[in-house]
């Protein structure tokens, strides 16, 4: 076997090893993000995952919803749900990281008054626009469809 052939085989092995490494890094990053509240899981009525949204994406959604508005605290809950791809819901539940804090709201109640605000810990909290100092759910972990 020539030296070039050996190197070609080694090259293919390196590529073959890089693919599972990328999948492992993705899985590790995702689990770490979910545990720390930096990744929010959006689930449907059966508890199946609809999408995962990083807090960086939430910040980007804020700029997208309120372009050029420096005073914007964050995107509305309704806007985030729409961006996640969750549809056909009548009641929604927002759960905090520890699972202790819950917030439920019907579709009619979900107006622009509920906002997801970024905090210093790199996570997001649910607040009411009229009283942002009162946190409804701290460190949001899951947004799920109830029915």
């Amino acid at each position: 076997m020539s030296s070039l052939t050996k190197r070609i085989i080694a090259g293919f092995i390196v590529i073959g090893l890089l693919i599972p490494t990328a999948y492992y890094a993705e899985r590790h990053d995702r689990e770490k993000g979910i545990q720390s509240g930096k990744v929010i899981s959006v689930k449907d009525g059966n508890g199946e995952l609809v999408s995962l949204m990083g807090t960086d994406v939430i910040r980007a959604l804020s700029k997208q919803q309120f372009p050029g508005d420096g005073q914007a605290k964050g995107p509305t809950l309704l806007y985030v749900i729409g961006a996640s791809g969750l549809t056909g819901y009548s009641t929604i539940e927002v759960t905090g990281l520890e699972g202790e804090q819950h917030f439920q709201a019907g579709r009619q109640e979900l107006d622009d008054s509920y906002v997801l605000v970024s905090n210093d810990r790199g996570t997001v909290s649910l607040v009411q626009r009229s009283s942002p100092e009162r946190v409804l759910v701290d460190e949001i972990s899951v947004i799920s469809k109830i029915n």
Partner: protein
Amino acid sequence: MAKTNAAMTDLTEKNDPPSKGAGSAKPTGAADITRRFLFRLGLADVIRFTMFGSMVAVTNDVTRIPMQLPGHTSVWWMGILILGKGLIPKFGGGIIMGAVSGVLAVLLGLGKEGIFIFFKYFIPGLLLDALAPIFFNRLNNPFVGAICGALISLSKLAAALALGVLLDLPMGFMAMGLGYSAVTHIVFGGIGGALASFLVKRLKPRLTSWE
């Protein structure tokens, strides 16, 4: 009269260009494009690499393929890089192509990384310069082309990820699809590299005057 004739002969010799058959006649000054200019490359090679680098940036700016797959640009991006390096197998070519395409990408306002997009273009070129000697610069071999194309395409993804983390860009969705992105980058880069190797094989014998 004889004196006048001798003077005319002198004048003719001074004004005439060296004949084609004069093998010992070497070009001098600005005309010497084979002399070392950058790395171990002559000015002509640097200009050729600059042309390939420009092709990368301009093609990325102009080409719009409605293919919603990450890394599909690697087909022509890595293809052009490997074509350039395959036709002129000299160290520094990848660096020049990467740097030229990176500067042009900044000037053309490509991407959302601002001036840092330079690194996304520069890193694949730099890695190509490191990889090609490992395979004895045999970029006319389709397997070597595919491996180099796949690896430098993956380096582009790695550079984009690193920039996203450093600049705090919204890349959550990208990080969550890292495995899938890596596979598509490898596939498209490999295709580009293999196609480029066929072109190198066909073009190189016709470009003997490039040496």
